[in-house]
């Protein structure tokens, strides 16, 4: 599947749209971290929680659980909920 990467994380990927594999969002993020070391910790903390202000969308719907199942045709979008100055 393809994952849309927000601009703050493109220093890791170099691309806005990158391939990743996995049967769950957790596996996709683990795969991304294999390809782009360090990227996962910037969005998921050491307790496996989504960091505040980091949002994940699958096929346009917000997800809040890393165990959500995914298929090859799903579209994953990582978004930084920017706010403040």
């Amino acid at each position, binding site marked *: 599947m393809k994952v849309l990467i927000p601009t703050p994380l493109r220093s890791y990927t170099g691309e806005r749209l990158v391939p990743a594999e996995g049967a769950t969002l957790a596996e996709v993020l683990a795969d991304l971290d294999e390809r782009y*070391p360090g990227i996962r910790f*910037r969005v998921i*903390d050491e*307790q496996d929680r989504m*960091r505040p202000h980091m949002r994940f969308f699958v096929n346009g719907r917000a997800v809040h659980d890393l165990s959500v199942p995914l298929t090859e045709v799903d579209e994953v979008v990582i978004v*930084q909920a920017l706010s403040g100055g």
Partner: protein
Amino acid sequence: MPNKSDPTVSPSTLILVATRKGAWFVHGDATRSRWRLEGPHFLGHIVNHLVLDPRDGRNLLAAVSTGHLGPTVFRSTDLGASWKEAARPPAFAKSPDGQGRAVDHTFWLTPGHPSEPDCWYAGTSPQGLFRSEDGGDTWAPFSSINDDPDYRRWMGTVQDGTPDGPKLHSIIVDPRDPAHLYFAMSGGGVHESRDGGRTFKPLLKGLEVVEGFDVADPTFHDPHCIRLSPANPDRLYQQNHCGLYRLDRPDDNWVRIGNTMPGEVGDIGFPMVVHPRDADRVWVFPMDGQTVWPRTSPDGKPAVYGTRDGGDSWQRLDAGLPSEQAWWTVKRQAMTADAHDPVGLYFGTTSGELWMSADEGGAWTCIARHLPEIYAVEVAQPAETPGR
């Protein structure tokens, strides 16, 4: 401290400035009269601390986060020409129930003892202590304090800390003994280990706390900055939420030295700087700690205060600084000294100005302005690189 006779040490002065929106290098010539601003590095990132390893003059570490992305550490061995992210940044141990603490940001970096050349320590918010044994590439929780029930109680919760989180800071390694360590917690007191961090115990005797609270409970102690005298490692100074203190080991009783400050200025502030060769000389930057704690320069008139007698008396050092309507202040990591003779002093302001004095506080000059809010200022002594 750098050895001025060492031919591998540059005679120029390099100031590392960490800000809320990135980092800058300020290069000074040998006379410290001309300065050149280089940067930004990490534009838009929160840089809490930027430290060049004094043991090799090459390994530069930056504690970096953003308002949204998780915290990390970047390393450079070419003075910022290139940066490499730590493979494993400071992070708490994973809790079985997933409800454990998560590092919000690494706040403080301290190079280890010269006998442990790749060792670094880090302090975080929420309050945690971490160590790297490979020059800052991988980090692990250090000591038992991060999960010790007493220390967790003394650390309190996020609600007990400052608005941007309680911080573990002022990690100090005794230059005579790598097993002798100190650290402080912005909410939780000062602590000492004599067994290489295996155990720590509070070091609080003589310190005051806010009225109405138990002075014997570390959780009510709010140290802002601890400094060890390079000239006399048995002497510590402390800027605390409740005044200025000195401690001469092996005694364990802090003595308040801020009561000799002018009453209208008081002895509240954040940063503290000790002379590299004279244990009796210290500089502080008082702030307004009255009523609602404006945390500005008292009366809008910024000044450094210095002592030449270990705190028995203080002199106001404000020549060149604004004489009125200047409401900035200086954070705990944002004031430092070089090792030249006379000593150069540097501080960065919450309004983004970098000031320096080439004569130990006698006169001040603004050497950079219009930067973001300055969080930390450190002097660096890079090793000479052929061709640079």
